[in-house]
C-alpha cells in the first residue's frame, strides 16, 4: 500500500520536472540507439569488410563533397561518422557503466566500512586506496596492457576501475564519518539493528548524495579517461572506436579543418553526459524528502 504510493509520488514529481525528463529521454535514446545499432545504422563500422578507404574524409552530407549515406561524413578510414557514433556509444556506455558499477560498488562498500568501523578496516582500505591511487589510471592502463599483452575493452575497464574506486571510497568515507555521528544512527542501533542494517538502511542513504554526484560526474570522467587512454595509445581497439577514440582521432584533423570528426562525437558525448547528470540531479534531490520542489 505504501510502497506503490511513494513510487507513484516519485513518478509524479518526475513528470513535473522537465530537466529530469529531458535527461532521461536523452539517456533512453542513447541506450536504445546503442542496443539497436546493427538495425539502424547504414554501415557497421566495426566490420572491416564494410569500411573502405574509398570514402575517407567525406564531409557531412549538406556540405560540398558530402555523399549519401554518410549523413555526418566519414573519418579517415572511411567509417561513417553517424554509424560509428552509435556503435561507439555502445563501447563508451559499456565502459562507463561497467566502471561505475564495479568501482562504485566496491568503493562505496569500502568507504562505508572504513568510515563506519574505523580501526584497522579503515587503515587497511584507505592505505590500499592510497596505494592504488598512486599508480593512477593512465599508468595502470599501460601496465595492464603490458601484463595482458592485449588492448581491449576489458583492459580499459580493469585499469580504470582499479584506480577509480578510490574516489568513491574516500567520498563515501567522508560522508559516513559525519553521518555515523547522527542521533538517528544511534537510535537505530538502539532498536537492535545489526550493523548490516544500520549501514544499509540508515548510514548509506544519508551518506549517498555526494556519491550520486560523483557517479554522474564519474561516468563522464570515465568515458573521458577511456578517450585519454586512446589518446595515449592504450585504449580500445582501433578498429572498434569508442566515442572517446573518435574524438582522439578527430583531434588530429582539427587544424586541417575537418571538424566533423570531432564535433559530432563530441556533441554526442556532451549530450550523453548532460543527460546522465540531469537525471542524477533529479534523483538526488528526489531522494531527499526535505528538499521541497
Amino acid at each position, binding site marked *: 500500500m505504501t510502497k506503490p504510493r511513494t513510487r507513484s*509520488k516519485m513518478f*509524479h514529481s518526475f513528470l513535473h520536472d522537465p530537466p529530469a525528463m529531458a535527461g532521461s529521454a536523452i539517456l533512453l535514446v542513447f541506450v536504445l540507439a546503442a542496443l539497436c545499432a546493427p538495425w539502424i545504422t547504414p554501415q557497421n563500422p566495426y566490420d572491416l569488410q564494410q569500411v573502405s578507404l574509398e570514402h575517407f574524409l567525406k564531409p557531412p552530407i549538406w556540405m560540398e563533397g558530402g555523399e549519401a549515406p554518410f549523413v555526418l561524413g566519414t573519418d579517415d578510414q572511411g567509417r561513417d561518422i553517424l554509424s560509428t557514433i552509435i556503435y561507439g556509444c555502445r563501447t563508451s556506455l559499456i565502459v562507463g557503466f561497467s566502471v561505475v558499477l564495479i568501482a562504485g560498488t566496491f568503493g562505496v562498500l569500502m568507504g562505508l566500512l572504513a568510515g563506519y568501523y574505523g580501526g584497522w578496516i579503515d587503515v587497511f582500505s584507505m592505505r590500499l586506496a592510497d596505494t592504488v591511487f598512486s599508480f593512477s589510471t593512465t599508468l595502470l592502463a599501460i601496465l595492464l596492457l603490458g601484463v595482458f599483452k592485449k588492448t581491449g575493452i576489458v583492459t580499459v575497464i580493469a585499469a580504470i576501475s582499479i584506480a577509480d574506486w578510490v574516489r568513491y571510497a574516500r567520498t563515501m568515507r567522508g560522508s559516513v564519518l559525519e553521518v555515523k*555521528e547522527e*542521533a538517528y544512527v544511534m537510535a537505530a542501533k538502539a532498536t537492535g539493528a545489526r550493523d548490516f542494517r544500520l549501514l544499509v538502511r540508515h548510514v548509506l542513504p544519508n551518506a549517498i548524495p555526494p556519491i550520486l554526484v560523483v557517479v554522474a560526474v564519474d561516468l563522464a570522467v570515465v568515458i573521458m579517461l577511456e578517450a585519454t587512454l586512446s589518446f595515449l595509445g592504450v585504449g580500445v581497439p582501433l578498429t572498434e572506436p569508442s566515442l572517446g577514440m573518435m574524438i582522439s582521432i578527430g583531434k588530429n584533423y582539427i587544424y586541417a579543418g575537418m571538424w566533423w570528426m570531432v564535433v559530432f562525437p563530441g556533441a554526442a558525448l556532451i549530450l550523453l553526459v548532460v543527460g546522465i547528470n540531469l537525471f542524477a540531479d533529479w534523483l538526488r534531490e528526489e531522494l531527499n524528502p526535505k528538499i*521541497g*520542489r
Partner: protein
Amino acid sequence: MTESRHLLEIQHLKTYFTTFEGVARAVDDVSFHLDRGEVLGVVGESGCGKSVTAQSIMRLIPEPPGKIVGGHIWFDGMDLTTLQPSAMRRIRGDRIAMIFQEPMTSLNPVYTIGDQIAEMFQLHRGMGRREAWRHAVAMLEKVQIPAPHKRASEYPHQLSGGMRQRAMIAMALACDPEILIADEPTTALDVTVQAQILDLMLQLKEDFQTAVMMITHDLGVIAEIAQRVVVMYAGKVVEQAATLPLFEDPKHPYTRGLLRSIPKLGERSKKGRLRLEEIPGMVPGLLDLPPGCRFEPRCPHSMAVCREREPELQDLGSGRLVRCFLYGT
C-alpha cells in the same frame, strides 16, 4: 488592512503546506495581537500550528512546500508578510527574536555555542570578536550554564539537552529584542533552571518592555507568567482570554478538556492514581478536515450545527474570544 496600534498584530494568517497528498492547512485564519511588555501564552494541541505561526512571523516557512497564502502580520507599521527580505533581515534577531523548539537540530553542529551566540553581538551590536565572545559568555552565565567560559567553546553535541536549549535562549535574548517568540523554551529544563529562565524573561520584559509570545504545553508556566492566553486547535484559534479567567472558567470544550488532563502535583499521594482524563478521539488530519467545527468529532457537546459549518470567533467581551456554537452563532 489597516495598520495596528498593537506592537504585533496578526490578521487572518494562513500558512499552508503543499504535500503530495494535498494541501495541509497548518495555520488557517489565525488572528491575535501582542502588546509591548506583555506575555502572551499560546497553547494548543500538538501539531495545531503554533510553531508554524511563529515561523510565519519570522518569515521562516520553508518555501516550498510551505507558503503564507493569506493574511497580514503588522509590526511597527510594517506588514511582515510583504516586507523586503533585507528589511526583514534587520528585524530578525534584533527586534524579533525566536527560540526554536528543537534545540539540537537548530544549533549549527560545526560551531561552538559561544561562536553562535557571539555572532548575534557582532551582527546587531557591531562588536568585535573578543567583546562579542565576552558577552556571549555572560549570556551563557545568565541562562545558568555552569562554567560558561568553558562551555562557550563546546559544540552542541557535547551539551545536554537542557544546555542546548539554554544556548538557544541565550542567543535569542542576546539583543534584548522587542518581541521574543519562545517556542517551548523550557521543555528540557529542570524546574529550578526553568524558574530562573522565566525570571530572566520577566526581567527582560521589565527592562525593555519586551513582548513575549510564549508557546508552551506547560500550563504551569502559562499560569505563572502569561497575561493572556491564545488556545489553538487544528490551525485555528479557538479561544483567547486573559490568564486568570481562562483557568477559572474555560469556555471552549477543548480548553476545558485540556485543563482537565493535567496531572496535578501531590494529587496522587492524596487521592491515589486516578486515570488521567483524555480528550477522546483523535486530532483530525489537516488534509481532510471535517466541514464543520474542527473539534466536533471529539466534542462532548457536539450539536448538529457543529457538523455543518464552522463556528466564528465570538467576542464575549473583555478580550475574551471563543470559537464555539455553545456561545451563540
